[in-house]
């Protein structure tokens, strides 16, 4: 096999391409990208744009999973972040002021970081299992967001805030640029320094890494803070996209999609080695899957089943054992090992 085929992201990439291509039969102009009112317009742009919140959450989740943990609270943090930003902007005397919006963004991300510290401390200082520790904030966080908004959808009409999730810079969606910048910064910081190796060490074997002198506690807290801030940014993009904060719908069940994206990207849930590019690819794949169901007109009742079938095919294609079994049978159908079985 060539190195390309052996690359762990080869099969997810193939599935992504197949998904995108299948759309062409139902929407001939699927790959066409045009300029509409001075910005790029087309289905591929939609796929990228709708992938942005998930890509950010998956990026944060990757780091947490690499430390051997898991963060279920990301969806709730998204809801809190969006709610805080929209409420703050709503209270401004001039919702259109850039300074006020920046302050709102700062406040939302600051609170997200606090949520991350809470998770990190519960996991690494108090020693609660990550799935339980973050479950607390998953439930309580959505409650906090609903309390803040009084259970209502909070509308904002603020042009600078709109830019985050629905604006364009030089024709490119701002949300996509934000994700690109965050991912690039994360890759630089994590892969160009020893940070990534240290995180992998903590995830692979906490005991060995502690004996080697790595301060796991700080690294773990940092991973949760990073995940929460990423979720905070995702929450801002999510609420800015529709100019409102919906504390019930924002980030609802996104933690599961994020975990799926991370797994598709080849990061093991047991911790250790991780792939940022893989997680981002996983997020784009899930978004492409959503858009595909809409385009090819899968009936609403069978959408979830359709998605499950694609995910199963994807996971099977990633399994070397499964591929070997399928290909071997195809090549030598006659050579059954029945004779070798001892009596």
């Amino acid at each position: 096999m060539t190195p390309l085929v052996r690359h762990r992201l080869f099969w997810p990439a193939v599935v992504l391409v197949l998904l995108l291509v299948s759309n062409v039969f139902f929407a001939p102009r699927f790959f066409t990208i045009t300029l509409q009112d001075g910005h790029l317009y087309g289905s591929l742009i939609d796929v990228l744009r709708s992938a942005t919140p998930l890509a950010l959450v998956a990026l944060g989740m990757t780091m947490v999973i690499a430390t051997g943990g898991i963060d279920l609270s990301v969806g709730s943090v998204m809801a809190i972040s969006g709610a805080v930003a929209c409420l703050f902007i709503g209270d401004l005397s001039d919702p259109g002021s850039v300074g006020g919006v920046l302050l709102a963004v700062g406040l939302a991300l600051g609170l997200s970081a606090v949520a991350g510290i809470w998770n990190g401390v519960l996991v690494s200082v108090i020693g609660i299992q990550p799935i339980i520790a973050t479950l607390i904030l998953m439930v309580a966080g959505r409650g906090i967001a609903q309390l803040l908004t009084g259970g209502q959808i909070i509308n904002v009409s603020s042009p600078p805030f709109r830019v985050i999730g629905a604006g364009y810079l030089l024709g490119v969606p701002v949300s996509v640029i934000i994700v690109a910048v965050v991912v690039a910064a994360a890759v630089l910081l994590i892969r160009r320094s020893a940070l990534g190796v240290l995180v992998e060490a903590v995830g692979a074997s906490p005991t060995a890494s502690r004996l080697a002198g790595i301060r796991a506690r700080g690294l773990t807290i940092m991973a949760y803070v990073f995940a929460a801030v990423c979720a905070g940014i995702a929450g801002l993009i999510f609420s800015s996209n529709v100019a409102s904060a919906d504390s019930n719908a924002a980030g609802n069940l996104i933690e599961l999609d994020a975990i799926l994206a991370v797994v598709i990207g080849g990061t093991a849930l047991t911790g250790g080695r991780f792939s940022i590019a893989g997680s981002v690819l996983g997020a784009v794949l899930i978004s492409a899957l959503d858009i595909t169901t809409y385009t090819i007109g899968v009936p609403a009742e069978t959408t979830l089943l359709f998605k499950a079938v694609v995910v199963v095919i994807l996971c099977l294609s990633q399994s070397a054992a499964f591929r070997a079994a399928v290909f071997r049978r195809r090549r030598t159908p006659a050579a059954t090992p029945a004779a070798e079985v001892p009596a």
Partner: protein
Amino acid sequence: MLKKWSAAVLAGALAVGALAGCGGGDDAGSSGGGGDDKITMGFSQVGAESGWRTANTKSIQESAAAAGIDLKFSDAQGKQENQIKAIRSFIAQRVDVIAFSPVVESGWDTVLKEAKDANIPVILTDRSVDSQDKTLYKTFIGSDFVLEGKKAGEWLVKEYEGKSDPVNIVELQGTPGAAPANDRKAGFAEVIKADPKFKIVASQTGQFTRTDGKEVMEAFLKSQPKIDVLYAHNDDMGLGAIEAIEAAGKKPGTDIKIITVDAVKDGMTALAAGKINYIVECSPLLGPQLMDLAKKVKAGETVEQRVLTQETTFTQEQAKTALPDRKY
């Protein structure tokens, strides 16, 4: 050590429970037994999951106060077991009327039987139950979602009267399996099938949320060569779709006609601004009607098995007049 602790905690819990029990008993004595003139109503709400629901709760609380009815309000937070607990405690407190909005359709027979045995009339609000025995509850007050879908379809038929060109419709459905989604879809389809020029070219779920409404509409705009009408099962999905339509360089309300259901304030604002063409109301303000029914039931009068919420429809002109007093 651990045993001692758990024993202490258990004892504490029991003490609290006993205290709460006493409180409940006192309460029942003062309201049920003492004040015969004042009606006591136990109400169990689904939760506070949407703006619609919050408005519903507010309407019930305000109209209870206005009607001089003593309301015992309980929030089930979306869980049936909480609701069953609440109803049992209402029965224990000997309230005069029990009203509730069931979280799910099935599994109510036992607890409703208990209420019937205790001679406490039950009124269902907003959602129904699937019990075979219709005597378990006095009446069901709420919207008719099929009728809402029909109203939406009727407006469309009238709007395109006398024209023979095909009309391409896209539909944003609510959460799959939810009664409002199924019924609004069925009612609409029933009305428009009379004329073959109406064609639903695409229909997908937008989960009743703005974000999904926007995302699905974006996909529709690219996969469908020509869209004349959008029918969304609630305002929020319609509002999301408006954003997608605008981003595609089209004018919502003009290039694509939009019909939605609910008539919440944000939807009415868009309707008044000409971005939506028609809204079928699904009113949460059933409080006054509920209190009337409670009084009638308490007085022993017979009531209809099914009472419809007073609801209307809104055109753009009507929205402009109604918008200033819109509460939710």
